[in-house]
């Protein structure tokens, strides 16, 4: 029995479609021109291109709740915030504003409930509770999209450091594969079907 309704995203075959809920869908950031910057930033331990130190810390904290670190590395170790820094550098004002205002709201919610105005200072339980409240917002959809895009795009765009994202899902970026590709075709071959 088909238990779950798949997201419409399953079927959208044209570009950009998976970003529908995020503000990125409206105008695509020109990250292609800036792709190498994140790696440079990381290598130099230098400043972010766009984010302030506080913003970087906040986005990093959010990323670490979207794909958390447990027995295996998460979005933090994969350097998602560097990818985000890159994208924002080339985003349009309207997109930056969505992120800026969304973060400001999140910080306001933080300050209203706790003794700090910084989301990154909270415990993970407190952070999850605040993020759950804003799950349906364009800000959250955007930051979620960016964290996942960071984690699973080519490492040269700044996230997915050491292919940590790909390792997580079991994707190996090879050019040549030969049978068997997995368990079932190996079994098929073994049984001579």
């Amino acid at each position, binding site marked *: *029995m088909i*238990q779950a309704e798949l997201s419409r995203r399953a*079927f959208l075959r044209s570009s950009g479609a998976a970003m529908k809920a995020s503000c990125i869908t409206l105008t*695509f950031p020109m990250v*292609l021109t800036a792709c190498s910057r994140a790696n440079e930033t990381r290598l130099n331990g230098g400043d972010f291109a766009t984010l302030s130190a506080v913003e970087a810390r906040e986005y990093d904290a959010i990323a670490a709740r979207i794909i958390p670190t447990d027995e295996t590395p998460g979005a933090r170790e994969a350097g998602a915030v560097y990818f985000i820094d890159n994208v924002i550098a080339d985003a349009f004002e309207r997109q930056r504003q969505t992120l800026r205002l969304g973060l400001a709201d999140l910080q306001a919610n933080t300050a209203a409930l706790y003794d700090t105005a910084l989301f990154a200072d909270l415990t993970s339980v407190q952070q999850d509770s605040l993020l759950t409240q804003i799950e349906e917002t364009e800000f959250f959809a955007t930051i979620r999209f960016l964290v996942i895009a960071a984690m699973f795009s*080519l490492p040269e765009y700044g996230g997915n450091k050491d292919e940590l994202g790909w390792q997580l899902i079991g994707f190996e970026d090879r050019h040549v594969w030969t049978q068997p*590709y997995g368990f079932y075709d190996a079994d*098929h071959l073994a049984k001579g*079907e």
Partner: protein
Amino acid sequence: MAQQQTSVTYPTREAVDFVIVGSGAAGGVMAKELSGAGFSVVVLEQGPHLKAGDFRHDEWSYDYNGGLIWGSKQGHPQTFRKSATDTAKPAEAALGYAHNVGGSSVHFSGNFWRLRPIDFKEASVRGTIAGTNFADWPISYEELEPYYTKVDWEIGVSGLQGPWDPPRSQDYPCKPMPIKGSDVLLERAGKKLGLNPYPAPVAILSEPHNGRPACIHCGFCNGFGCEVNAKSSSMATMIPLALASGHCELRTGCTVSRVTTGADGKADEVVYWDAEGNEFAQRTKAVVLCANGAETPRLLLLSASDQHPQGLGNSSGFVGQNLMFNGYTSVVGLFPQPVNAYKSIPATRVIHDFYELNPSLGFYGGGGIDGRHYARGTPLNSALMSGMFGGPKWGADYKKDLEQEFTHTAAFDGHTTSLPLATNTVTLDPTLKDKWGRPALRCTYMDHPDDLATMKFFFDKTGELMEAAGAIRQAGSYPKNGQEGNVHLLGTCRMGNDPASSVVDKYHRSHDVSNLFICDGSSLVTSGRGQPTMTIMALAFRAADHMIQSARRGEI
């Protein structure tokens, strides 16, 4: 200037024999055939000439930054609406196609089904359907078969003839592709249910052919260009031969604005901008439009003149009408062992037992089923969908789902018929303009109730197959409320014998303009069951054959 691709150059102020607009599945075949027959040919292509060495496993570029399919960022906005009573809203690539030499044959999945004899005469056999333009084709399967076989051998197709397949005059040139785990699951489930799964025909080489190498199973077919030229695109197969003929000039980065006609009513010039925006007009003895089922009707509508007030070649009013997308469904199953459907080509088995649904069901339709990866094997798209079996969309449990769903799932997809409707159209948007100042493409589309019923049938059937395959969990969907875009752009300048209800004759010649030919997805009279590229290429070989004979007799 146009980026020069070839040593032969033709002056714009002297008429060449043929100008071909578009270099995709049909345009590439036309270019190769016409230039190979010794005619002077200019091909105008709006995109760049990307080649195997240019392509990468770069999902972020191709899927999210318009690397192959241009959108509003590149100055090509579109609009979409479900009904003519709605105001169309901006929509990214609702009419999706690739902007490069080879067109969408470069990034397509490679699935390469022939139509069957029934497809050409279904309205006679099955009966017409009130409120639709469902009709027979002006040609039969038997007339097209030699050209299907020509496609098989000229570009390279892999497959295995089954007893239920349409008859063929020659075997496939290449053996079938090796089976994937997702298709082992489909094959076993199909057999359990008494169905007949068999190797999927694909325009991807399983062994070397015509000097090109076999597929190395990297997995980046659908949405990507092949990095070793194993995918039998127009770019990899036809364009090199056209350029080698010494009679074909390929001008890339050139966007056609209109086709003009002379005092005799015949097409005489094709007007275009080069990449820098300089306007040129190429004189020609004949024009061949192969710009796809969206851009071909737009160009005809943009070429309206005093002589052709409704648009060039549009005395029937059928230009832009009868747009057909094909329907689609998908059910994803979770399995205990690694499937790794992300490796190798999209689909290696197909089930065609439901090609024609029983009329007693109360609706018209049919289609095919194949096994795939749920998100084309792409890591980012896959991760965005994770949690598909009801899990959360972020956090520790989302991460657990990420760890298994990419590798331990198979998708069974349905590919189905669409009925031709006067109300499903490609038209000119009344307000939105593209970067050249031309009215943007406006798509109006709502699936016919029979098309939705057909999708429901295939959705349920693939669910049963998934159950039989032993999936632990299932998730799935189909566009119940109607599709809002697709990459199959069919029917908008249909072939037919009656000038009142078709745009071109059975040889793809415009009923209105004797030296204007139209051949691409727009030519299809009915939708087939979901994989149109093989038929588009076969039609192009057939049309070119007749055009060459006509030209030699001085009848163009």
